């Protein structure tokens, strides 16, 4: 999907050279439609052999029994070695004790910011706690004036709010994903923190369709902070004009009391059960898991390798923008591993939108959200109860 879909073509010639008997056909999907498309393909028995899956989707497809178990393949492999992977990421691929995917790259969200505008507003270093962040945002807003903003938080993207929610102590879903936990004090604080950014005029009430070109706007200072992922390192380097290249930097997300957690995202490579070319697919997975190839992949796409060895290569170790990510990866937390997560995250964002537009206050919104989430999880509760007759 996305940028990975575009760059993988460049990695394939080497693979096909080493494996002349294997020919790989790529199909690209846009992220916004990938989830639907994959489920449609599942429903229509039209899945590919190998696929990139967002790691929050792995539990869902595992619940559909669509994924091949990879434990034995991993055990026999000399390339894919569990110890070399960031543990938090490796674990997101286990469902019911079975390995269902191999991490391909990690993704988390950090702050991208205009260091020059921040420094003009009086802050020489990026904020590390919510307090500092609020002060920085207020200062930047004052500096840029009423026609511009301090931070861009597209209202249709749930990752920033999710990260803030994951920074809290209480889990987002209670009782092994049976009930919604959004009415907890922690999430309410996170939601309040998020929505106040709009209330205070620090963030524009826009969806990503309302911004015609994120990079142009960032370069023009329309906003100074942006929460985004590793792919944007390359995009920023590519698309920002030369005179702006020294004016931006990345930093880990501030948390309530100091550097905070962020989403443990990323993609895994999975083999669908319907595949009739499992050994060939596995060889492609092994190839893409080699540290050298992972570093090359990083060069092409900006995505970050999930293996520590890859991070030791000069290319990554020397990239100043990647440092924030390396730091953040020590503090990543996964989203709840339930198949319905995609839908729940959507509901969460919709509720946030309602609060931003003043249709509900935080209390009502979180109670309503929990009500909806409980309804969404009803079937899951029924299925879990059925599984354990007690």
């Amino acid at each position: 999907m996305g940028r990975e879909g575009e760059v993988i073509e460049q990695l394939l010639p080497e693979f096909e050279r080493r494996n002349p008997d294997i020919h790989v056909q790529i199909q690209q999907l846009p992220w916004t439609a990938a989830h639907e498309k994959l489920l449609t393909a599942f429903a229509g028995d039209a899945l590919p052999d190998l696929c990139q899956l967002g790691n929050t989707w792995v539990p869902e497809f595992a619940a559909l029994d669509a994924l091949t178990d990879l434990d034995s393949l991993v055990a026999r492999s000399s390339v894919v070695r569990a110890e070399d992977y960031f543990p938090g990421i490796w674990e997101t691929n286990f469902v019911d004790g079975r390995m269902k995917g191999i991490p391909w790259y990690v993704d988390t969200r950090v702050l991208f910011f205009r260091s020059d505008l921040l420094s003009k507003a009086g802050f020489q270093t990026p904020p590390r706690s919510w307090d500092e962040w609020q002060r920085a945002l207020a200062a930047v807003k004052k500096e840029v004036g009423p026609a511009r903003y301090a931070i861009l938080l597209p209202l249709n993207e749930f990752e920033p709010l999710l990260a803030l929610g994951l920074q809290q102590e209480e889990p987002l879903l209670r009782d092994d994903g049976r009930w919604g936990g959004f009415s907890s004090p922690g999430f309410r604080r996170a939601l309040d923190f998020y929505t106040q950014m709009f209330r205070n005029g620090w963030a524009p009430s826009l969806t990503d369709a309302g911004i015609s070109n994120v990079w142009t706007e960032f370069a023009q200072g329309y906003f100074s902070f942006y929460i985004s992922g590793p792919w944007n390192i390359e995009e920023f380097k590519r698309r920002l004009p030369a005179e702006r290249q020294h004016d931006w930097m990345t930093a880990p997300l501030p948390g309530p009391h100091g550097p905070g957690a962020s989403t443990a995202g990323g993609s895994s490579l999975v083999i669908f059960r319907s595949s009739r070319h499992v050994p060939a697919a596995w060889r492609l997975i092994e190839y893409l898991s080699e540290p050298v190839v992972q570093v090359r992949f990083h060069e092409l796409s900006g995505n970050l390798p999930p293996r520590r060895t890859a991070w030791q290569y000069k290319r990554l170790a020397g990239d100043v923008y990647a440092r924030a990510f390396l730091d953040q990866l020590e503090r990543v937390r996964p989203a709840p591993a339930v198949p319905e997560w995609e839908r729940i995250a959507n509901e969460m964002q919709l509720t946030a939108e309602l609060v931003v537009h003043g249709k509900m206050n935080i209390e009502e919104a979180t109670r309503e959200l929990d009500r909806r989430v409980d309804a969404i999880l009803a079937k899951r509760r029924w299925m879990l109860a059925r599984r354990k007759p007690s």
Partner: protein
Amino acid sequence: MRLSAIAWGFVAPALLVIGMFFLLPVATAAVLSLTDFDIYALADLRNLRFVGFENYARVLQTPLFWQALGNTFYFVVVGVPLSIMVSLGSALLLHSRLARFKPLFRTALFAPVVTTLVAVAVVWRYLFQTRYGMVNYALGQIGVHPIDWLGDPRTAMPTIILLAVWKNFGYNMVIFLANLQAIPEEVYEAARIDGASTFQQFVHVTLPMLAPTLLLVGIITTAGYFQLFAEPYVMTQGGPLRSTVSVLYFMYEEGFKWWNFGTASTVAMLLFVLIFAVTWGFTRVTKNEAGA
């Protein structure tokens, strides 16, 4: 071979296709609406439960369904009259003896009808962009503050209505035009002799003679507008704040985004009943008026 048997041979292929790929699924949808068919059932049919009218009860208690219904009604109640008025108006203009370059104008006014909705929705989205869109720029020239057309819940649906009217008015215009041309000149002559002004001619000659067409056009346009889907899908994804979620969009999300075929079929059934009721009501009301 007997004639009737051969006749069946003529209709059989078409009837087979329609029966198997339309009527049968419609009937099945009714059944599906009574189950909780979802992604778990898709994986394993044993996870399917028969739930009777529970889906209906649940959907009718879902606030988003009512919002979708409200949005759709908004679209229909504002869009249909607007569309018909523009169609009728442009037909009258084209029909006028004073109009020049008729074929050229007719082609221009009809062009939007044949364009692909998705392509046009994409263009519209850029035209109505808050900062760089043509529309806001033009409005800005006369001193109007930039409007966040597609980002403000109050203006998103009106924007979609504008798009629908722009795209479709040519269709009904052509129908009106043909019917206007079918009104015999003598009737107008008679009215003029009686001293009727242009406006009176319109009210007492044109409108009554167009009445059946107006009804037909009204029904078709209404039924069509209830099926609003592509515009929200391409332009707003149902937002902002679900203000552009139509009944069909809601159904699509339930069915093909979240794979709750049971719920989606319920919504589809409800939509069908709704369209049927409205069009039936239409015909009833106008029959009564015509009778009285």
